[in-house]
């Protein structure tokens, strides 16, 4: 399963064909900066510090997304970027006691477009973007020989979701502004992905 063609659900519950792409191009970043920031800044609000951090991230992402240690992933639907992710596969190690010290895919950054986030737009335009990106992270982990293991620092409003889908909440990380660090074992990743990578459903 190469995960190139996927399906999202639109606000009306209809299926929408979409793609996962394994590279973030300069044009995608331009589009992201234009569309996403326009949406965030609507209502005449000034840019928040978080948004400034996004511009910094954009620059660093472009430098890193093509490197050997980082993979940029995006979800596109009808030509538009619906979600972005940057995964790092060299610098981080597992923290869960059962797999401490082993390699994992660390999700350095994951974001759905503002119109797909219930906190900003309800109902969201497309659902399934976050899960599609996680599936992509698991695929990257499998491809690296990390058996699906992955980790991430969750935004507070997303933490309940990561618990819900079976990741282990390792609590607030003092080195990451007390964001909770979540990690998935190979088994947890397999359970989340169901039959997506095994060719048959076992979960």
């Amino acid at each position: 399963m190469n995960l190139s063609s996927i399906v999202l659900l639109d606000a009306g519950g209809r299926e929408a064909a979409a793609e996962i792409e394994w590279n973030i191009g300069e044009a995608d970043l331009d589009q992201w900066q234009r569309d996403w920031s326009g949406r965030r800044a609507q209502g005449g609000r000034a840019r928040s510090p978080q948004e400034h951090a996004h511009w910094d991230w954009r620059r660093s992402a472009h430098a890193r997304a093509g490197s050997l240690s980082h993979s940029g992933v995006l979800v596109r639907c009808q030509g538009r970027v619906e979600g972005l992710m940057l995964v790092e596969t060299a610098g981080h190690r597992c923290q869960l006691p059962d797999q401490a010290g082993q390699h994992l895919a660390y999700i350095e950054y994951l974001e759905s477009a503002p119109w797909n986030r219930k906190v900003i737009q309800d109902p969201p335009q497309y659902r399934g973007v976050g899960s599609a990106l996680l599936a992509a992270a698991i695929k990257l982990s499998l491809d690296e020989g990390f058996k699906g293991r992955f980790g991430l620092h969750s935004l507070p409003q997303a933490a309940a979701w990561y618990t819900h889908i079976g990741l282990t909440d390792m609590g607030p990380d003092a080195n990451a502004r007390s964001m909770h660090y979540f990690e998935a074992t190979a088994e947890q990743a397999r359970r989340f992905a169901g039959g997506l990578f095994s060719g048959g459903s076992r979960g």
Partner: protein
Amino acid sequence: MANQSSNDWFVGMARREADFAADFGAGRHQFGEPETEAPIAVESDPHKNVVFGKFVQLSRRRQGLSRERLAERADIDLGDLIEIEEDASHIAEPRTVYQLAEYFDVPTRPLLQIAGLTVARDSDLLEEGVRFAARSGSMDVLTRDERQALEAFVAYLEARE
């Protein structure tokens, strides 16, 4: 097009997201400066922290909670909570503000503004906050005036969203 079994997986996950998730964001980059620990507050308007502290204190007291109990239930640091309520110059951790917004069921964005963590070009919000703070004292049980002030302020926050 995806094959049928993977198609089913994506549709199933999209439905679970619809039922459950508020958001999916991950990564410390979305939470301030990428690699540094510098505070992300950019304004130090003393009113704001008074307002945020009052808001937290009254919301807590309305539920009859001790600080310890609120910290436990909202999953926040007790020390941060004490400073929020008592020290007007204290800058709350972003995570704490998110957790409190969720626990008290008020919109996150205006609360972040009140807490001074995002830039607010929003003088109405500031004025409303000061009015709210001025109406609230510090007795143990909410007076009727305090309750009314808190309810009016929460309604105002919700209208900002």
